[in-house]
């Protein structure tokens, strides 16, 4: 009866009403920022793994039939040579159906490839990303089909990976800033509570209460409110993640990220309300102890 009662009537303060909402917003922002950081990390890995071990070779089309058949012969010879190299997982020339599929997003479904000077494309996938293999392929290509160009995706992949790194850093910075803002907010609310209940705090102090006893009243109050706020924020973030996941699933795109997380990553997301609660509790405690230290 006595031990569980919060004998400093903090529940009646205005701060008790708005602190959970503020914490909920903070946890929501922090969780979404962490989701962005995690997703960017996975997307960068996927792009890196998918593209650094693949090459696309492009040979410009020719207008005359005779030149086209000459190129096709060159291509067959080149592909047979490539297949004999080490570290090659797959070599294929893209057929009309595949080319159609590639062009569809830009030119629509009903295109007639033969009406357009569509280049020949050869897709090469390596077992492992290897500069040596890529150099060998480039050497063979220069020898057999000098007019061809190689796209090893490194130029734009480097830019993309740089961009995802920046987004990750910004997202993590937001998490840190949100944590700092939450701490400042709790300091403000605790100081407000100390000012409102100054007489009660002084009474406890004069009766011989240890500073830690008085601080515990404020810290558990902050903990209680921040758990309510934190879980609400996490729930809201969960709903947002589920909605985005569903939208991204419908898009069914290889370029867009997927919002699926491992158990460890879910654990990291669950840490957000827990961290917010611990930050709130410790901040409240330290604020009260610091304030009480000014009393004799």
């Amino acid at each position: 009866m006595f031990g569980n009662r919060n004998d400093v009537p903090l529940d009646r303060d205005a701060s008790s009403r708005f602190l959970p909402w503020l914490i909920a917003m903070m946890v929501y922002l922090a969780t979404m920022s962490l989701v962005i950081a995690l997703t960017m990390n996975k997307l960068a890995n996927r792009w890196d793994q998918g593209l650094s071990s693949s090459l696309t070779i492009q040979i410009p089309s020719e207008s005359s039939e005779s030149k086209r058949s000459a190129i096709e012969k060159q291509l067959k010879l080149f592909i047979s040579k490539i297949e004999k190299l080490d570290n090659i997982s797959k070599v294929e020339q893209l057929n009309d159906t595949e080319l159609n599929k590639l062009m569809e997003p830009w030119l629509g479904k009903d295109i007639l490839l033969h009406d357009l000077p569509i280049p020949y494309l050869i897709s090469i996938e390596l077992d492992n990303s290897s500069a040596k293999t890529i150099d060998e392929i480039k050497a063979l290509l220069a020898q057999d089909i000098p007019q061809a160009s190689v796209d090893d995706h490194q130029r734009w992949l480097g830019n993309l990976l740089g961009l995802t790194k920046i987004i990750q850093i910004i997202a993590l910075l937001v998490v840190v800033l949100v944590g700092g803002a939450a701490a400042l907010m709790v300091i403000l609310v605790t100081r407000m509570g100390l000012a409102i209940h100054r007489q009660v705090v002084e009474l406890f102090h004069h009766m011989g209460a240890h500073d830690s006893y008085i601080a515990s009243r404020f810290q558990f109050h902050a903990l209680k409110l921040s758990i309510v706020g934190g879980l609400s924020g996490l729930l809201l973030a969960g709903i947002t993640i589920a909605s985005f996941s569903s939208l991204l699933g419908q898009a069914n795109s290889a370029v867009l990220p997927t919002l699926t997380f491992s158990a460890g990553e879910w654990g990291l997301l669950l840490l957000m309300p827990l961290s917010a609660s611990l930050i709130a509790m410790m901040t409240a405690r330290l604020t009260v102890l610091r304030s009480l230290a000014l009393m004799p």
Partner: protein
Amino acid sequence: MDFKLLVRFQDVHLRYGSGPDVLHQVNLTLAPGSFHFMVGPSGAGKSSLLRLMYLAHRPSSGRLSIFGRDVSQQDRKELTMLRRRIGIIFQDFRLLDHLTALENVALPLTITGQSLDKVRRNVSELLSWVGLADYLDAKPPTLSGGQQQRVAIARAVIARPSLLLADEPTGNLDDKIAERLLFLFEELNKRGTTIVVASHNEGLVNRFNHPVFKIVNGEVRLIRNEQNATASITTDGA
């Protein structure tokens, strides 16, 4: 240092911030088991003197010893332990409105982590002793002024303090009830508690045969002593 003295002021000055002296060169000793009145007009420094005694402030200069300990030399944790031996009755009672009478009285015990069962039993007994057995679960706003005062007294004595300080405890009471309250303090005094009562009602104080010191403009003067007095008061240069 004389360890037989409960409270000893030696050339104590008190000022708040950079303001003037509120208390000026106070020299005063209280022996264990004594009963003192402190009188003086409003603003003379009675409450400030009490605040020094219940360790809400440290002296600006001079030396104050309580229970044989120089409070200027004690660290905060030690002062906390000294405070537990002091009971205080505030003029405005300072009861917590959201707690019941029982919980209010129990506060000095629960802050020291005493067992709940023991607290309930002791508090119930004490509230019965002050005539509030039927009001254990009543909250202060539902009690009369006199009942609230008895709750405040019960809270001040529940931890069996060695020193009981009362700041204008009779301020809001008629003479008959005030007199009865002082008899209650005498009862506690007979059980060994040292008592200091601050009051501006000199007529009421004169009905009791206890030492009286008066504070005027921050200076303390002994204006009456009883036979076999247990207090000695000196003023400037005395």
